[in-house]
């Protein structure tokens, strides 16, 4: 039963992390190039625009869910399973979500990169 709880936590961590990253990416694309904005409108405008963006706020909520799910996951399962499994699945999940939801052109080069990094993270944290 504990095994099922651990994998449920991993699934929630991955889903929440991917949701958070996609929302943040969408928010920041709508805010625009931060460097350009900073130069032309000043720091306060940039911070105000980012903090007031609804997708940014939702992204923060999703990341908070991911963080607390990680704490729950770590209390049920070994860190050597939960950390690498969630990090590497998040890499692959992000590639799929960015393709479908953000219409990013995830070509073979990016799939291979996501796969290599996912395997690397799994080995690193094992």
């Amino acid at each position, binding site marked *: 039963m504990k095994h099922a709880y651990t994998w449920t936590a991993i699934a929630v961590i991955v889903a929440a992390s991917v949701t958070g990253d996609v929302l943040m990416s969408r928010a920041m*694309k709508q805010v*625009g190039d931060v*460097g350009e904005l900073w130069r032309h409108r000043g720091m306060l405008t940039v911070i105000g625009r980012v903090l007031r963006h609804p997708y940014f706020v939702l992204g923060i909520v999703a990341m908070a869910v991911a963080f607390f799910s990680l704490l729950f996951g770590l209390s049920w399962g070994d860190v050597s399973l939960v950390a690498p499994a969630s990090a590497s699945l998040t890499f692959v999940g992000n590639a799929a979500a960015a393709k479908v939801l953000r219409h990013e052109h*995830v070509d073979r080069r990016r799939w*291979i990169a996501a796969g290599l990094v996912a395997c690397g993270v*799994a080995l690193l944290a094992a």
Partner: protein
Amino acid sequence: MTFRKYLVLAGVAVFGSVGDSLLSRGMKEVGNISIHNLQVVFLAVRDPWILSGILLLFAFFAAYMTALSWADLTYVLPATSIGYVLLALIAKFILHEQVTPGRWMGILLITAGVGFVAGGPALTGVAADHDVLQERAPEVASVRGEL
């Protein structure tokens, strides 16, 4: 991609990994936190290592948000994962942790992944099309004027 943009990507990797290392060092000083004494985690913020770690993680977040404002998610994540390699090197040479052959293999795979993605375009899809249209707007206007 300009030099400034590569600096921001390097900032994501460096601030993230050094921030995590400082937190790790600080939490070893604070010791294990019991599930019945979770409030101890708030007292841990007074530890200078943890405070520095938190400040660096704020810098990480700012750099990450900046990178996402001009590059794809599927570019930023693999390109900045070189931070995992940096973290392993800090763990071995500064925190004196054991880095096993499996971990070195992991480092090799991540480095290969970073090399793969870094050579490609940073921005694709709808956002990139929008950028190209904006850049070419004066050209289009002048052609229309000629017609």
